[in-house]
């Protein structure tokens, strides 16, 4: 039993480390793309189109003769970066809203929660499409739309956690000693919810990346010629039969990143649950 437990722990840890390495390499290559990338990602040369992997183009070239590896490296910044921006803005807004709503209760709570209900009443993707459609297709607008749609989910979860936390004895005893409300929130409420939110955010980061890529695939997000994985998939889909390599590279990258974030989130959750039990 014990050995099994340790083996399981190691297995989980191994997966966690692998996913950390994958994410690290991808982020690093994205950050260092201007130095490391073998070619200009936006340089079009029609004489080089559909080249197989070679020394100059390690992953070959796409239908416009652009180096796929360079595009993947630059695309890492756009894909991962925008996902991180979406996530951090979403989390910040929802922590503020959720804590306010849960801690203050009453009318503030009722107002914020009805607002959430209104947003939740529409399907996620539809609402995003409507907002992007109204604002016009661009990466910034996709980020705005995703934040608007997503903060409500986290705000509700955080509100629930705050509701149960504020009834705990240590909050009462902090009140009894005359601690002001803002200090109770900062000292006692937030430290108790942030670990859970980190897990949730990590687990959902993969989903956000998929969403952004999906919107780019639909032509709403990143506009050409900026390299982005979803947009690359979109470009490649017409050559699915003639040259599946084009779709495989960005697809694999998205798959790897999403799986890595999910594994990382799982590991974090296990760690927290272990600590709490």
């Amino acid at each position, binding site marked *: 039993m014990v050995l099994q437990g340790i083996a399981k722990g190691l297995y989980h840890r191994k997966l966690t480390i692998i996913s950390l390495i994958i994410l690290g390499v991808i982020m690093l290559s994205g950050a260092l793309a201007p130095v490391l990338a073998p070619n200009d990602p936006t340089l079009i040369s029609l004489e080089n189109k559909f080249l197989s992997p070679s020394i100059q183009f390690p992953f070959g070239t796409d239908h416009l003769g652009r180096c796929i590896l360079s595009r993947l490296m630059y695309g890492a910044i756009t894909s991962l970066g925008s996902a991180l921006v979406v996530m951090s803005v979403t989390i910040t807004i929802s922590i503020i809203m959720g804590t306010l709503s849960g801690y203050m209760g009453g009318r503030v709570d009722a107002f914020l929660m009805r607002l959430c209900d209104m947003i939740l009443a529409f399907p996620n993707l539809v609402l995003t499409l409507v907002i992007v459609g109204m604002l016009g297709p661009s990466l910034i607008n996709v980020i705005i739309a995703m934040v608007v749609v997503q903060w409500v989910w986290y705000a509700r979860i955080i509100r629930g956690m705050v509701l149960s936390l504020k009834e705990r004895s240590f909050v009462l005893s902090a*009140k009894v*000693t*005359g*601690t002001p409300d803002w200090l109770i929130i900062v000292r006692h409420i937030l430290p*108790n919810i942030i670990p859970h939110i980190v897990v949730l955010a990590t687990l959902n980061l993969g989903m956000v990346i998929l969403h952004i890529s999906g919107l780019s695939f639909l032509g709403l997000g990143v506009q050409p010629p900026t390299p982005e994985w979803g947009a690359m998939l979109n470009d490649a889909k017409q050559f699915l039969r003639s040259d599946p390599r084009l779709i495989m590279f960005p697809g694999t990258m998205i798959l790897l990143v999403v799986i890595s974030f999910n594994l990382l989130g799982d590991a974090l959750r296990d760690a927290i649950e272990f600590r709490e039990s």
Partner: protein
Amino acid sequence: MNSAKVEKEIMNKQVVLNLKNFQAHLPTKRGVVRAVNGINLQITQGKVLGLVGESGCGKSITCLSLLGLTKEKGWVIVGKAQMQGKNLLALDSEEIRRIRGKDIAIIMQNPMAAFNPLTTIGQHFLETIRSHLSVSEKASREMATKYLGHVGLPQPDKLMKQYPFQFSGGMLQRVMIAIALAMEPKVLIADEPTTSLDVTIQRQILGQLARLKEKARTGMLLVSHDLGVIAQMADEVAVMYCGYIVERAPVEQLFNNPLHPYTRALLASKPQMQKKPLQAIGGQAPSLLNLDVGCPFLERCNEKNRRCSHYKQKLIQYDHKHWVGCAKYSAEQRMLNHGLA
């Protein structure tokens, strides 16, 4: 000024907290829960007022309402709680916050749950100090260390950096007392401070509280349902039942000459050294929801008479410091007794 007036003046100064006609009601869909129904209590400097009663008779609600902690949950609080000329029940939330922990400190029932598992003992301490005084972090750290030493905890510097789960229940209770003492409150409310602790620790904690009473001249409200604790600690005892004070007397008088049938039953139900079966009080306390007129103890009382069913609870002065709320001692009943005799 005559001497009686002077004496009264001094008396008033010594009373640090004066509860007048204090009521706490909670309106619910099924009716009004009358948890506290007009009680009068005085907490005197350097004295311990014991408050006894069974679970759900309004003791804890009284403590929390004093600090305005029940208002936000929809409780309706009526009456006066005077402290230094201010009515605590009429203060706004910021004013009452300044009083919490500084003028009135509470020691809570369950020390294990009263500390945030994610913050160190030191941070809990500093939080209280810095909520009330504008002192530097270093000064407040020194203060905290000093008070941790006062309650007999070894190596206070080291303890400051530790987390609540590294402490035992008794240690945490002492930390809580230390935090309560740090602001040198005028009133200390100890809401069953020893219920979750074993007897040896209980003894230490009570010793600590007794020393505090002597040294800092703090007025103390000791809430408990442990009569032994009350007998040991209190100067005066108030017995609470269904949100009423049914008897109030100096501790020796109450134990030697209990007047109210409930107090008698309570004292009779104390475990004795002889192997006799325990004397239980039959029945259950009535629901606080929609309390009827008449004595709330009526159904369980073995000394009742026909007058009891429309007796309106109020305290009758039996002798100098002994008050009781029972129809048996009302003026008319006494007259009847004398007439028959």
